[in-house]
């Protein structure tokens, strides 16, 4: 009995979390899939009606925009935030005297609720109030920075604000990673006269592969769920030019009482995530298995 217990302790430790995830994630996804085949309006109903919600979804020009925006926003946001986070972490790791203060400055945006920082960003990015007006005030009359009010560019302002908010956390992740790299190897490399930048690209960064996985997951999770940010900064506008699937789904489910439609959009979102994340997970985890 104790032997069995000893052998199975790891499984027993993992079991409660696993069961919880099974029910509260996969069970609920199954529930959503079911609802997406119904004509649920204000509250969920369970009579299957076929693919009507998916037909409606793909007939909606607003959903097209939302899905497109997810790709533009997601790719730019993840890439830039990751690169910036890594650069900041490396810069901060150079024995900086004021490290504590600077680190806090880079991190603090995560602490603030987007409900209000969105307003601050809105003012900063507004051509009449913010950066454009300020630079023009310095005498550069032809300076233009009107992305916020330009339907073709507005999504990039969402990218800027999103990077501002989360790159600090990515920096923290990388900083924790940098500080767990084995110092002996680095010393050996230095003794061999390998230049610093080579030590980073050839030794340190590759050894942080698992941290990249964390950063990627965190950032793609934020990209897919970006919601407060869009609502506070652009409200999905101009028009619905900065709508994202998450805002679309919320609007359908809660402002428009169209839960079936919301469920179908959620399912498409999950499929997109699946298509992107699963190959990545597979390649990351397989190499660890060998």
């Amino acid at each position, binding site marked *: 009995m104790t032997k069995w217990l000893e052998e199975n302790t790891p499984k027993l430790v993992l079991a409660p*979390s696993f069961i919880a995830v099974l029910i509260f994630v996969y069970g609920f996804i199954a529930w959503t899939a079911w609802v997406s085949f119904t004509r649920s309006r204000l509250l969920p109903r369970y009579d299957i009606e076929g693919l009507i919600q998916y037909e409606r979804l793909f007939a909606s020009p607003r959903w097209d925009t939302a899905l497109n925006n997810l790709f533009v926003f997601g790719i730019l946001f993840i890439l830039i935030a990751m690169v910036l986070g890594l650069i900041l972490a490396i810069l901060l790791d150079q*024995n900086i005297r004021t490290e504590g203060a600077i680190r806090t400055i880079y991190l*603090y945006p995560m602490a*603030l609720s987007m*409900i*209000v920082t969105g307003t601050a960003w809105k003012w900063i990015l507004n051509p009449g109030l913010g950066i454009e007006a300020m630079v023009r005030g310095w005498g550069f009359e032809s300076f233009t920075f009107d992305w916020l009010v330009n339907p073709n560019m507005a999504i990039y302002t969402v990218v800027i604000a999103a990077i501002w908010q989360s790159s600090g956390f990515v920096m923290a992740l990388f900083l924790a990673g940098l500080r767990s790299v084995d110092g002996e190897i680095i010393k050996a490399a230095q003794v061999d006269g390998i230049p610093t930048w080579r030590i980073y690209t050839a030794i340190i960064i590759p050894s942080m592969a698992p941290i990249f996985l*964390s950063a990627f997951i965190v950032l793609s999770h934020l990209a897919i769920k970006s919601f407060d940010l869009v609502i506070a900064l652009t409200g999905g506008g101009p028009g619905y030019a900065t709508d994202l699937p998450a805002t679309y789904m919320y609007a359908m489910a809660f402002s428009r009482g169209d839960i079936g439609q919301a*469920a179908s959009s959620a399912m498409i979102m999950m499929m997109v995530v699946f298509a992107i994340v699963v190959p990545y997970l597979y390649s990351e985890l397989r190499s660890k298995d060998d």
Partner: protein
Amino acid sequence: MTDISMTSAQSQSQTGKIVLRWLLYIALGLFALFYLMPLFVMITTSLKSLDEIRTGDLIALPREVTFDAWRTAWSGACTGIQCEGVRPYFWNSILIAIPAVAISTLLGAMNGYVVAHWRFRGANIIFSLMLFGCFIPFQVVLLPMARTLGIMGIAGTIPGLIFVHVIYGLGFTTLFFRNYYVTIPSELTKAAKVDGAGFFRIFWSIFLPLSLPIIVVTVIWQFTQIWNDFLFGVSFSQAGTQPVTVALNNIVNSTTGVKEYNVDMAAAIIAALPTLFVYVVAGKYFIRGLTAGSVKG
């Protein structure tokens, strides 16, 4: 990492080193400006009177500094019929955030430890399933979760909210610890097993002491997520258990009322103070973790 810049610098000329150093600080400073810009707008706005906001430039320095907005936000702004500011809601948020962060971090550490060092058949699949769970949009979860909480009898209560936050935090906490623990050499575990140490013993005396940096990261992440959560907070609370984000939202987001931007900004900063506090305090332990870690030379 400190040794790198030191030793490699010896091979460079002294002036080159100083120029590089200056460039480094300038770069760090410019980034700092970018990050501080919105905070500047928020603080200046919170120090203005409403008249000045209405008539003046929105992102200029205040002509007359007043702390009225801060006082109002803390204890006088209306969040409904009560006009007691965000103060009464703070306690709810603390009661929710602290247990939820502690439980999810502990579970994540154990899970990560299992997945990284006690692999059994299917462990990787379980880990992948948990990871993928991070991506479920919370809007999807709301309605079935409401039903579940109702059945469990904890709808609208603080334990209910803690439960929800722990469940949806597990994926991330497990991920963080797993990815940190796989960088710890497995020889360490093997040697300990040979010495007769068991599952919990190894976790307690070898892994936990090494975990400070990642505990800090996880706590920062979880605390931020839970403290700033609005969607769960608004859906699964009732009168008396609403967290501070709901109060903040009520102050800021009234649609057809008169907007008091100065109070909004002050309230936002006040509501963020606990998270900021965690960052300042926890940040120190990044360095502490560096010196405490025995893996690092």
